[in-house]
């Protein structure tokens, strides 16, 4: 068994869930998402986020629009699509179930 690999596997699934969860509150600029993920310590290197965002966008869970910025070039704002919202509510459910299952085993 490889502890680092197990941890990376756990983080990977959680990361996708966290991105959708952050976007469910409001549409976000990628750097805002990074800030939240870093505060919550679910991301190690920032480079991991961008392929995930693009993959989720290609899967139809996210969409983005360009917004003008006072400080420089236009910024990409991501938001959940109706499909993404549905996907997230499924993930919410399975997360609750997972936490419950793990707690049940750990506290036995």
């Amino acid at each position: 068994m490889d502890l680092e690999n197990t941890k990376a596997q756990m983080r990977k699934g959680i990361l996708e869930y966290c991105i959708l969860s952050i976007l469910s509150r409001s549409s976000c600029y990628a750097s805002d998402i990074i800030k939240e993920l870093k505060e919550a310590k679910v991301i190690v290197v920032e480079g991991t986020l961008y392929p995930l965002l693009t993959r989720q966008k290609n899967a139809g869970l996210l969409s983005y629009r360009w917004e003008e910025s006072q400080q420089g070039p236009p910024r990409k704002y991501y938001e959940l699509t109706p499909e993404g919202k549905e996907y997230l509510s499924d993930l919410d459910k399975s997360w609750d179930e997972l936490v419950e299952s793990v707690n049940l085993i750990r506290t036995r």
Partner: protein
Amino acid sequence: MKITVSINLGGYSFNIDEDAYAELKRYLKNIEIHFANEESSSEILSDIEARMAELFRAKLSTYKKVITMEDVRNIISILGTPEDISDNERTSARDKFSTPGYHRMYRDPDHRIIGGVCSGMGAYWDIEPWIIRVIFIAFTAMGGLGALVYLILYIVLPEAKTTAQKIEMKGEPVNIKNIKDSVKEEFDNVRKNMKL
């Protein structure tokens, strides 16, 4: 004195030291190669460049106008090298080295009574070979059909000789771990037989 290069990164213009520029170029090339197989790889790349530009801007002030090697190294550590990024994405290393699990019927020489046909069928369907043996004996008693089928199967089915074939016989994927387990099992069997 140093030569600086002027670059356009994510829509911003930067002055960057020549050595730092070489390092940055090398890094972006590696990232590009890393995501080359990805759908919309150019989009990922331009997102990363946009983020980089933002991080570089935070490094500059009225007193600091040029991006240095130190800045580039610092930003690479924040964004992560391709290795760091794939570290977070990698799937279990064990899965990577296994071929898809073939499942074939063999004669099993390790658990045979006559030719290993019944034990091989047992391993293939994961049932006790005794059940198959009883069926064969029953059919043989009722006019010899069982013996004929046994003979045909003995000719048709190859014997599982190698460790990989023995794993295939049970329908498990042939990978390093299974080969190790299988060899260990064989070794234990030999040791048991030696004691008897």
